[in-house]
């Protein structure tokens, strides 16, 4: 299978029925994508496929053949600096234990791409598929709102 991963071409010989999550973490060693529940409830394994946020635990690896996949490792700017969204998460205290953070960043990134000026309600809906057990969400929502353009 071939796909674009964080902007680079990848060609892999793996069983296509495996979960994209496992191929990312185990074969490609991109461990920024986390496994939480493994059943599509928590959003910790969120990645972007062709710009849309999905749970990588629910995607068969073969289903991304020919697609573009972005993980948290691909969010930083080309010069290696953190993206404004990542920077805002740090500055606003939007990360505590960190398990939900990669998924939150990707869901927020997808939201801001589709809707550069979301309301607070729209941010809450956009992040409703990502569970956080530390922050109470307030700081996360503040960080996303700070990145409106």
């Amino acid at each position: 299978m071939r796909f674009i991963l964080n902007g680079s071409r990848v060609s892999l010989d793996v069983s296509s029925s495996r979960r994209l999550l496992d191929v990312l973490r185990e074969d490609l060693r991109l461990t920024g994508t986390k496994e939480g529940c493994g059943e599509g409830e928590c959003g910790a394994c969120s990645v972007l496929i062709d710009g849309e946020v999905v749970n990588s635990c629910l995607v068969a690896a073969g289903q991304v053949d020919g697609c573009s996949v972005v993980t948290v490792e691909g969010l930083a700017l080309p010069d290696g600096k953190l993206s404004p969204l990542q920077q805002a998460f740090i500055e606003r205290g939007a990360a505590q234990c960190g398990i939900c953070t990669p998924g939150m960043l990707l869901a927020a990134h997808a939201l801001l791409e589709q809707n550069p000026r979301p309301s607070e309600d729209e941010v809450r809906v956009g992040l409703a598929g990502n569970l956080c057990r530390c922050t109470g969400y307030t700081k996360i929502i503040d960080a996303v709102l700070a990145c409106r353009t």
Partner: protein
Amino acid sequence: MPDVAYLQPRDVADAVRLCRETPDARPLAGGTDLMVMLHAGTVRPRALVNLWSLRELKGIRRADGGVEIGAGEPYSGIIASPLVGEHCPALVAASRTIGAAQIQNRGTLGGNLANASPAGDTLPVLLAADAVVVTDRRTIPVAEFFIGYRKTALGTGEIIVAVRLPAGARGVRFRKVGTRAAQAISKVVLAVNRDPARIALGSVAEVPLRARGAEAALARGDVEGAVAALASDIRPIDDVRSTADYRRAVAQNVLEDLLDASPRR
């Protein structure tokens, strides 16, 4: 998870052939149910037949005064569709209650039907709308589609291609009761239509079902009778999400509310 073969059909006809010729093959669409069951080992197919990339299964178009939705069209496409918004706003409302963005970007009507969960959120809407399931070989009214717990009328290798909503789907109203707004599996789902009289529910029996006694009362214009009859049309159970008593009481309250029959308390 033992190795499962992964087959990529060129089109629907090829998918049907692969499903027929491969022992124990399961069609895979957005994976929101099937990938969970595969990983947990509760289903053990020998092969997956990937439908997600088939263009024939995507898209939303006008059909016979109503609308036809490709079986592989994700909920996000249904939510964004002005055509579905016009012809069946209840289906848009139901789609919005399913998971959140991640699930709405992958979950499909075809998958919701084939998985046949009694808690499938779109299924009462499809029942109340008199929707028709279009497969590779025939059409099946949704009212005849669910034949037992997670059992459907689909034959071997039969693939759902689209769902047709007739013109009357516009009047359907929908309500889901869950523990929270997002990411909740429903305790009770209810969809009603006034004309023709349709009352359909999820999470209150082993299948998504139409409440025939309540419908008969509603057809006579007897709203109070419909609410009363509902109690014996459904057969809810106690489980991890709720209790039978709660579900029966809430189903009646929600029906009363959707029919706008309750005195304002």
